[in-house]
């Protein structure tokens, strides 16, 4: 009897697994079907085409200048990730190691910027970037993105540094290291796992950013993939297969990184959440 119940439970679990997988794949299944159809083909999106048609991909690549958009995305992402990790880890060390009243205040002030949504300060931020001649430049975009991702980075790094035993610092101090050497030689190398997670989280956010790009990158030559595709979409409302092909292409870089570095994606988020 108990064996029967366990057997039913198991079968139910597998059925649930199957059901969840199917439901979560539907949007992507529809997208793929659409991306391979000709514009004239109005057959249901539930069925794949019975011919092979790849012109959508080459068309969207040339017409929306996806290549240059990818390059812009790459430049902005690499610069932002590098800068935010550098500034963030520097800030996190004293805040984690010397929790004086003053430093705790600084920490709270930094973390509380997490709840300031970019769009709350949209109007003055836009004005500021116009005033410093930063519209449609890489550097302004990188600085703004760095600032808004910085609280997350400081949060993750301080959380991690607090778990490193303080005795390590003290031993190094006795051995004649000064405080900066301790940070760069002892602490920094220990931060590799959390750095991997930080890089992944920030990379995702920057690569897929739309709200900042929309306001700060107005010249075509500096626009990123989400921006270019959204314009492409409103422009080609009547040619959805083309838009679908563009969407599919835009997912490829991150999808590849995800499949190869999956454990960092998942562990980074989870660690940040559970330890915090």
């Amino acid at each position: 009897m108990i064996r029967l119940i366990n057997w039913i439970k198991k079968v139910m679990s597998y059925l649930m697994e199957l059901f969840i997988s199917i439901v979560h794949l539907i949007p992507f299944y529809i997208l793929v079907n659409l991306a391979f159809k000709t514009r004239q083909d109005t057959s249901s999106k539930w069925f794949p085409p019975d011919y092979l048609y790849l012109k959508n991909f080459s068309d969207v690549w040339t017409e929306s200048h996806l290549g240059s958009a990818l390059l812009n995305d790459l430049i902005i992402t690499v610069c932002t990730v590098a800068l935010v990790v550098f500034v963030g880890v520097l800030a996190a060390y004293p805040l984690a190691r010397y929790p004086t009243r003053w430093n705790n205040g600084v920490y709270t002030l930094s973390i509380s910027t997490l709840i300031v949504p970019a769009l709350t300060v949209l109007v003055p931020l836009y004005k500021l970037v116009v005033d410093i001649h930063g519209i449609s430049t890489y550097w302004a975009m990188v600085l703004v993105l760095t600032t808004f991702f910085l609280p997350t980075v400081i949060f993750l790094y301080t959380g991690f540094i607090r778990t490193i035993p303080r005795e390590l610092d003290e031993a190094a101090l006795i051995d004649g290291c000064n405080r900066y050497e301790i940070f760069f030689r002892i602490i920094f190398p220990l931060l590799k796992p959390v750095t991997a997670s930080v890089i992944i989280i920030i990379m995702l956010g920057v690569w897929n950013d739309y709200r900042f790009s929309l306001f700060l990158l107005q010249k075509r030559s500096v626009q990123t993939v989400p921006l270019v595709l959204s314009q492409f979409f409103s422009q080609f409302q009547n040619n959805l297969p083309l838009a679908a092909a563009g969407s599919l292409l835009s997912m490829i870089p991150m999808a590849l990184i995800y499949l190869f570095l999956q454990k960092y994606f998942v562990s980074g988020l989870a660690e940040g959440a559970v330890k915090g």
Partner: protein
Amino acid sequence: MDIVQSSENKMRETKTAGRLKKFFDSPVSLNLMYVPALLLFTVFIYYPIAQGIKISFTNWNGYSAHYSFVGLEKYRYMFTDMRTYKVIVNTLIYGLGSTLFQNILGLAYAVLLNAKLKGRGIVRTIVYFPVIVAPIIMGYVWYFIFQYDGGALNDIMLALGKKPIDWLGNGPRAVWLITFANTFQYMGVAMVVYLAGLQAIPREYLEAADVDGASGFYKFFHITLPLLMPAITVSVVLNIIEGLKLFDVIISMTNGGPGYASHSLSTMMSDLFFAGQDAGFAAALGNLMFVIISLFGISSLKFLRRKEVDL
């Protein structure tokens, strides 16, 4: 004379050098390391917040050099404009609705996929996958499904012999469909957080309950759930903050339409600023949004932290 002076100089130099060395030996000097971060916050967050308060008291149109102070007029306008209330309600549905669905479904998925099942890794990968897609693109994918003409959902309606529905053409329905789309995309994050939380629960607790003959139901609500509270706090608070900021998916699914029916505070602000050329109103709305997000973010954090138990 010269020798005396130079030696005096040297002494002064070594004195300053000594002072510098002392300063850099003390932990206080390490505080210099967070100066770059504070500078960035000041320039790109604190200063804009202060400016935003100032702009909300003006009639600035967003580009001209001339504007004048109009006091509280923009706020009065904001609170008499019926759209504001509509948009606040929408924002709360986006924020709190997504949070509720994401966490209930994320927890259910985590419990299911924490059990020893074949293929659970693949299912986790599939559920988490949308997280890596740009939300603006994910919104377009949903548009293919919900669109009136040839949308995938209407194909099913037709196959069932029913009339096609303009899914996104009805305001309240569009709001819930956008909430659904946002939930679908980010429930993978909640799932992953809860999986980590479940794996951190000591096995002995559940085994002890088994010995006492506790039911699965009892174990879940009296052991698992209380011990998951820290994970729940993090997941819920982050979801609330993110959900109240919702922007991209709305733009790609409905662009705030029909009319203003599915706008959130974010999208309405950007609409007022760029299309409506009313920077004062947009800034006032931004300040309102800041207040709402702080209120919900902080109170949910306080409420949930109190429910946490120590191991």
